[in-house]
């Protein structure tokens, strides 16, 4: 622990997104300005008002993760772990940090909602004795920070953060603070979500939060546009490793997928604060802000 306020740098990134698996796919997709909104095929949407979303195509678990472990993970955790393994491998945490000084803080809005849906159906159809003993470890919101810590032996701060659409932003802000103020040397942080399941699609849709442009999914997501009619659901995970810099030049190495510009931006995001808004719950959903606001900027 040190009294000095630390600079915080990002030394590793990992992603699972509707652009594909990995930061390279994400970066290339953004560079191409590609829309990923498509018709939902993983369940029948005949009776749903909204029939499209940004789903992860052809998801493959990170090859370092044992499929036996993955059997115990809801898709949201599989996304999170795949991004986390990529981020930690990309960083210098796995072989160059004191595990007692490395924490994990990840955000998710609704966690393992698919598993909850499956097990609720089982319980109503077959009775409570048929509910899987894996329900709780598969659905709880803080399972991914736990899994990451168990995998790498990181023993510093560890919990999940839930603040709707701002969950991952809050997690990254809190991770930043933990490192900045010396509570940890490094924190693995970010968020993961796999909420495109029947009941949550219906829930968001029925509260009027989603765009209903079923005839034009590609142009449905249009924040700040006067013809915006709601948000488009997405899924995936983004994880990064925040740490105190060991040496200035080490943080500037060229990333294999050429995302140096992204890093530069994140590195400059050097303050973070949150505050509550006065508006009610209905004002918060779908606008990425919830009842509180995360702000990052340069100081």
């Amino acid at each position, binding site marked *: 622990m040190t009294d000095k306020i630390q600079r915080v740098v990002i030394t590793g990134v990992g992603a699972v997104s509707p652009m594909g698996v990995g930061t390279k796919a994400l970066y290339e997709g953004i560079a191409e300005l590609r829309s990923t909104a498509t018709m939902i095929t993983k369940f029948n949407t005949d009776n749903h008002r909204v029939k499209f979303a940004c789903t992860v195509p052809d998801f493959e678990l990170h090859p370092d993760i044992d*499929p*036996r472990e993955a059997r115990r993970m809801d898709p949201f955790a599989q996304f999170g772990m795949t991004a986390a393994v990529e981020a930690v491998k990309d960083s210098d945490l796995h072989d160059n940090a004191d595990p007692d000084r490395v924490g994990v803080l990840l955000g998710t809005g609704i966690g393992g909602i698919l598993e909850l849906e499956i097990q609720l159906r089982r319980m109503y159809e077959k009775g409570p*004795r*048929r509910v*899987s*003993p*894996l329900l709780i*470890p598969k659905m709880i919101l803080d399972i991914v920070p736990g899994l990451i810590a168990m995998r790498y032996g990181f023993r510093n701060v560890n919990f999940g953060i839930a603040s709707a659409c701002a969950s991952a932003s809050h997690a990254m802000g809190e991770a930043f603070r933990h490192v900045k103020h010396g509570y940890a040397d490094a924190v693995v942080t970010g968020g993961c979500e796999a909420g495109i399941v029947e009941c949550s699609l219906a829930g968001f849709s029925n509260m009027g939060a989603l765009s209903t442009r079923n005839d034009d999914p590609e142009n449905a997501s249009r924040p700040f546009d006067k013809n915006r009619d709601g948000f488009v659901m997405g899924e995936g995970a983004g994880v990064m490793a925040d740490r105190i810099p060991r040496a200035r030049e080490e943080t500037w190495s060229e990333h294999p997928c050429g995302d140096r510009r992204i890093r530069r931006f994140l590195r400059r995001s050097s303050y973070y604060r949150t505050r509550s808004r006065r508006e009610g719950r209905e004002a918060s959903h779908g606008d990425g802000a919830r009842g509180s606001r995360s702000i990052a900027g340069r100081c």
Partner: protein
Amino acid sequence: MSAREEILNKVKDIVAERLRVPRENLKEESAFVDDLGADSLDQAELVMELEDEFNFQIPEDEAQEIKTIKNAVDYIIEKMD
């Protein structure tokens, strides 16, 4: 195929699927925890699957005694009789 073999095959299918173990590695004496890497949650799930497949309920104290594939097969045969 004898009735026992049939049950053995079904149990092996369930164990291979649940514990993600190659089916050819499964022997009758394979122990779920010691040989196949299962833990208490896996065991609880296995028992639930056996109950579903063979259509009977296994009381908790008896479930704890089912530690190997052979134990499971013997238990099922006994119940069916």
